[in-house]
């Protein structure tokens, strides 16, 4: 019997679980996970399952911080309505190199040993089709949000993930990041044209909010609030 697995399942039971995923790296999953969490109607727990690069902590500017530990587990960092859980709060600013089996178990431990109390739980997954998807499948029924860019390479790679999810009877919400920018009254699409369920604009200003993403109220967040949140 695996107490760890039971505990992790228990932590997610009865909650609305959203998984932000992509088979491709560098498409903006972490920024979108953060903005979805910040846009939800009530408080949300945002769990960074990218246990190697821990980008979420960097986005919110909480690097090199140790999370408190209470009777109920590792206490998330609270930023606005977001309760943030990241391995960065356990290892601080240190590299994490792990063989495959340990990756799988660390992801489970991170969920099992954290204090998760909110109705919404958002997972930011690392790129690929590996342990992170298998762990989530074993623990909970999740709503997948697939992130791609309009580039042909990204769309072709993401197709593998879509095929897999359909085989599992899960219908993902397709979010196309960096779709267009507005020039005067015209929509310019520099990276190609691809229609998703939600198409997000390019906002170069977002770079200024790395480390304080909680303060970003620009165009990308507005589209997420208006078009993506109602689909959840």
């Amino acid at each position: 019997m695996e107490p760890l697995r039971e505990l992790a399942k228990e932590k997610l039971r009865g909650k609305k679980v959203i998984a932000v995923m992509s088979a491709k790296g560098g498409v903006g999953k972490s920024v979108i996970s953060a903005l979805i969490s910040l846009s939800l109607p009530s408080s949300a727990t945002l769990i960074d399952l990218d246990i190697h690069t821990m980008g979420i902590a960097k986005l919110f500017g909480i690097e090199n911080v140790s999370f408190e530990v209470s009777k109920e587990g590792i206490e998330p960092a609270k930023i606005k309505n977001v309760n943030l859980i990241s391995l960065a709060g356990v290892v601080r600013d240190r590299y994490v190199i792990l063989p495959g089996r340990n990756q799988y178990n660390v992801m489970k431990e991170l969920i099992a040993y954290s204090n998760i109390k909110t109705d919404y739980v958002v997972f930011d997954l690392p790129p690929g089709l590996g342990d992170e998807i298998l762990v989530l499948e074993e623990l909970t029924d999740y709503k997948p949000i697939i992130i791609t860019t309009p580039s042909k390479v990204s769309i072709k790679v993401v197709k593998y993930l879509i095929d897999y999810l359909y085989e599992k009877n899960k219908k993902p919400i397709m979010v196309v990041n960096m779709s267009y920018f507005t020039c005067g009254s015209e929509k310019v699409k520099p990276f190609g044209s691809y229609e998703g369920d939600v198409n997000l604009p390019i906002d170069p200003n977002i770079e200024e909010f790395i480390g304080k993403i909680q303060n970003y109220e620009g165009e990308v967040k507005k589209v997420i609030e208006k078009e993506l949140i109602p689909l959840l």
Partner: protein
Amino acid sequence: MHEWSIAYSVVKTLTDNFDKKVLKVTLVLPQFSFLDLEILKEAFDELKKENKVTQDAELKIKIAEPIFKCRNCGKEFKLSDVEKQLNEVRSQYGEEYPLHLMPELFPAFLKCPYCGSHDIEAKGQEIYIESVEVEESGAVTRTS
């Protein structure tokens, strides 16, 4: 404080898997997590009162001494061979150090004392319930 999470996980596992009274549960813990067994037992004794399945359960704890194997050079080693490394982690992070909170992080913090590789595996590093004794019509049934 982390011990409470583990105690809760044991109580939860028992209540999910058994409907008869549990008399004894044997839990195996990895040595390098250095959990405080007094706190763990205290937490278990407190949490077990919440339901009939576990209210009379006795918690037995076994500590597993892990055997590490390096997948790069193939050599085996024990915790005592990497004790200095472990002490450095504990002194750097304090009481709630990463291997205490998440034992599965060991390859990120410990390396092979022979070749320096982090590609190591361990036998006996998992937390698991080894056996459960339940009351059945006056008799005792042991489940492994």
